[in-house]
């Protein structure tokens, strides 16, 4: 009985992981500073046009969010939009050059807590929802962005 169950649970785990793996890209380096070769996620996001649509929704939403406005009060929105578009393109495997500062450099003078980082993730999730990005695809992009918390959260 016990052994059967253990096998069943292991099987479930393998199926769940294998199934998810089959529809996702091979594991790619997730750091912002390393470009990825695999473009599957970039394509799933709708290419550069899809990413731009997400970012166009994301930037005004971010600036308007009461939890975030403090951090973006001195930010020039067109510049932020350009940097996010380049960065999302790069981390998703679109092969774009990212011309902005490093994450550590860009956030060094800001007092950003993990709660603020999570709030930003929620705003990005809302934007991806608004752009009809499937939940699984959202998580694949978030998985490439989330490790940046080490350079952003102080």
């Amino acid at each position, binding site marked *: *009985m*016990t052994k059967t*169950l*253990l096998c069943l*649970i292991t099987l*479930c*785990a393998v199926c*769940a*992981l294998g199934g*998810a*793996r089959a529809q*996702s*890209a091979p*594991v790619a*380096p*997730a*750091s912002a500073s390393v470009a990825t070769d695999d473009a599957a996620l970039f394509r799933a996001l709708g290419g550069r046009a899809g990413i731009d649509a997400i970012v166009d929704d994301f930037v005004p939403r971010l600036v308007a969010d*009461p*939890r975030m406005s403090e951090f973006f009060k001195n930010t020039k929105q067109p510049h932020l939009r350009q940097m996010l578009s380049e960065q999302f393109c790069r981390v998703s495997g679109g092969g774009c050059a990212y011309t902005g500062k490093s994450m550590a450099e860009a956030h060094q003078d800001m007092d950003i*807590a*993990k*709660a*603020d*980082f*999570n*709030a930003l*993730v*929620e705003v990005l*999730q809302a934007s991806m929802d608004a752009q009809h990005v499937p*939940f*699984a695809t959202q*998580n*694949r992009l*978030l*998985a*490439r962005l*989330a*490790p940046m*918390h080490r350079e952003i*959260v102080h």
Partner: protein
Amino acid sequence: MKQFPSFRSLRAPMAASGLASAILVAGALTAAHHAARAESGKLLLTGGVTSIDGAAGGGLTPWAVIGSNATQGQIGVAATASVVSTRNYTMKVQGLLLAIDDRFEASIARQDFTTGATGRALGLPGLHLRMDVLGVKVRVLGDAVLDSDSLVPQVAVGVEVKDASAGGLKPTLLALGAHTNGIDYYASATKLLLAQSVLVNGTLRLTQANQNGLLGFGGTAQEGYRLEPEFSIAWLANRKLAFGAEYRRKPDNLNPSVLGNGLKEDDWWDVFAAWAPTKNVSLTAAYVQLGHIVPAVATRRQDGGYLSAQLAF
């Protein structure tokens, strides 16, 4: 949840459970007071739900996550009511949990297990088995959610101090060589495979408990501690909904006893759905299989339903 400076002491929950309750309630009120404002804390469902022993995790097993909506630099609380109903038995659980800095968790759970026909058959009609569980958990390393470029899990260690009150059954348990209180020690590792939307947890529990402690600790067949593994896996269907399964191996300290295999116990497992309609509310429903519980009287396996509602800040 509340920002850090208001926090006063973590040592108190280790004292009498009455004091721990008072502190947990005070924390709950403070956090609830601040809940009205726009919240920044954990991402939805990443604090897990509340286990029957009070610690954040799945339903039957603790995870390495620290409960509530609070993340680093914050203090949070979660209150939970659960009910498990099997073929012959019902158990109600109330739990309260205090989370500090996404590092420490203190919890208390009160379990009330109705023995029904089994109690009557044992000459103890209306018998309830009650247990208080005082829990403390510390996150040791990792971030289960955000460290998505590495396979290093979030790891936590914890203790569950259990005080069982078996009522009229107590003399029988003592005669079988069981104690009525005990301490479980555990280590948990939790990883959200974010790109796959799958969460996995493994827990190793050092325990003497019979039926989680409701039938005491230790016994005729086995006196010492045993190391038992517990596993959970959950698939996030969307931000608010997760489906999963859990398995918990258990000791079998009262088998054999003077009742032969009449007090044999089995491993537990369940399949569950957890739904968070809002940031502060989560509901969990599960099919549970608790195996034999006092098969000398209740011969059938105890499968049934589990429902749990959690309010978290």
